């Protein structure tokens, strides 16, 4: 019998499938999500998501809920949500607690019979890959007629790639990954300025996941601007995964907001490598373009998910990577990225915005270029 190659145990905590489902529901323009579970579950993200205009409430299952079931609480909260928020689209999301005791989300929906669509997501946090939470949410959205079969298949393929990206060089690549703050930003900025002054040729690549691009793009914008001023002879090619014609509604909106702002601020985007949800494959597109046109470039600045870019055509370049995951530093260094920096707490700052947000590395680079 075909025994699966036992996947190695990973000890560091990783993103939760429940949270992944919540963010997916937000991307689907859900107004209110009911978390069916304990009051503290997903607390931090539930709060942050409200910045994006999605309400998250909880059925607050307690010890007695675990023992006697939480059906009545779910019905009660669902009724309250309808009365209080008058939502156009509701999500109900499971948690470990409610799923283990066998709660049936659909029963509450049948009891209440809301006249708006309800996306029921039977998810818990016990999946190895958090992308599972996204898939389950999308399956329910498909069942509720909110996304098309084609979009579902597209998303599924992307998520498979995203999982592979994490397995190869990301959060799921090692038994334990120690967090790190990465290299000092002013030192790295100094080195980057040096290369620009020497008129070296550089790639400036945004390959970011969804709304995180609101801050990562700031770095690419500063790199482009500073290079223009510092080394008039230096050639910079800009690439970005800002295709506004693909993905779920929010991702399309965000792509066009960022793109317009970059263009307004004078940045040429030479190549669009994909959409904001295509970061797992846009890296391959970027790599192909590099292979065709820019193999002889001297350096590359890569923001967002730098580990999604294959190293094939980057090996001979000096690499400047900016991630928002402290556990991503070690794998990037191992891939051969010379300079790796972390924008700490980036994600929270990119929720609830529709404009580019200042980054630490961008600001550092700009300041240092003034003295140069």
């Amino acid at each position, binding site marked *: 019998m075909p*025994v*699966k190659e036992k996947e190695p145990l990973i000890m560091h905590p990783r993103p939760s499938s429940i949270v992944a489902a919540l963010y997916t529901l937000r991307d689907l323009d859900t107004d209110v999500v009911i978390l069916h579970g304990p009051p503290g579950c997903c607390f931090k993200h539930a709060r942050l998501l409200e910045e994006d205009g999605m309400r998250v409430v909880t059925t607050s299952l307690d010890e007695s809920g675990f023992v006697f079931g939480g059906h009545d609480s779910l019905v009660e909260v669902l009724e309250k949500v309808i009365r209080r928020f008058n939502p156009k689209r509701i999500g109900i999301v499971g948690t470990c607690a409610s799923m283990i005791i066998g709660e*049936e989300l659909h029963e509450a929906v049948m009891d209440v019979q809301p006249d708006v669509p309800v996306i029921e997501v039977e998810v818990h946090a016990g999946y190895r890959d958090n992308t599972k939470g996204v898939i389950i949410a999308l399956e329910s959205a498909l069942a509720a007629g909110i996304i098309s079969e084609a979009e579902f298949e597209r998303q599924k393929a992307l998520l498979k790639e995203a999982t592979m990206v994490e397995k190869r060089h990301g959060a799921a690549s090692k038994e334990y990954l120690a967090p790190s703050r990465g290299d000092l930003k002013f030192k790295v900025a100094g080195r980057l300025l040096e290369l620009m002054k020497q008129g070296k040729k550089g790639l400036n690549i945004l390959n970011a996941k969804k709304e995180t691009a609101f801050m990562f793009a700031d770095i690419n914008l500063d790199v482009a601007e500073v290079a223009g001023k510092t080394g008039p002879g230096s050639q910079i090619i800009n690439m970005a995964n800002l295709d506004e014609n693909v993905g779920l509604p929010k991702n399309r909106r965000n792509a066009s907001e960022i793109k317009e702002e970059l263009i307004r601020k004078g940045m040429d985007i030479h190549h669009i490598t994909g959409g904001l949800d295509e970061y797992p494959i846009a890296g391959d597109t970027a790599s192909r373009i590099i292979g065709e046109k820019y193999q002889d470039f001297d350096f590359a600045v890569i923001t967002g998910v730098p580990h999604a870019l294959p190293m094939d055509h980057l090996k001979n370049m000096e690499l400047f990577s900016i991630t928002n995951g402290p556990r991503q530093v070690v794998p990037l260094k191992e891939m051969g990225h010379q300079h790796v920096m972390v924008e700490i707490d980036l994600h929270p700052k990119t929720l609830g915005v529709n404009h580019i947000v200042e980054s630490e590395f961008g600001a550092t680079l700009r300041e240092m270029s003034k003295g140069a």
Partner: protein
Amino acid sequence: MPKQIAIYGKGGIGKSSTASNVAAACADEGHRVTIIGCDPKSDSSITLLRGRRIPTIMDLMRQGMDIREEDIVFSGYKGVRCVEIGGPEPGIGCAGRGIIVAIGLLKKISKAIEDTDLVIYDVPGDIVCGGFVAPVKKGLVNEAYVLTSGEYMPLYAANNICKGLSRLEMTLNGVICNSRGAPNEENIVSGFAKEIGSRLIAFIPKDVLVQTCEREGFSVIEKAPDSGIAEVYRKLAQSIMENKEGKIPTPLDDSKLRELTRI
């Protein structure tokens, strides 16, 4: 849609032996039958497989198997498809969750519960938590049967099960009496059935053949097809296959139940 039934009753009352004999009798009639053992002790299909123990879904999951249909669905007596969900040892982990996960997997990878004429869910004696009603909650059961003897405690359990069924808005399609030789048994069980809004569909006498066949790994249908008890199971199988009447049961209060069981 196939007929999807679940047999409930007090622990040890005879659910598994009844389920496997009914499965065998239906297979004799040419029906395609699937039996799903939902008990962690995984003893539902053993008498359809000549005493052989098949790997359970939970065993394979635990080993990290990439589970395919042929790893968990086994062909028993006259092609009856046998599945055992299995589960943890008593006192460890969460067997109910096991059932939820296994049912989900089975639905995904196998047609055994769709592309068939009869599915029998053999559940353990006590529905101790939400997981054990997963097949019902997932809409995979459309008929329930309660098995009981004429004694007070099995009837008490049967009545409790009816409470559960009515809460789940699940119909009860009949009461089966598995006799323990108690006095006035058939009348008592028949009376109980009427009181809860159902009917007695079979009276299975106590017969040592059930146990001797079982010990050798057979149903009586296979090992002793000419016996009287085999005929009883055949009749029961037939009435289950023909049964279309189900009603949400109305459970009794305890004093009524005591009165009813007074001999």
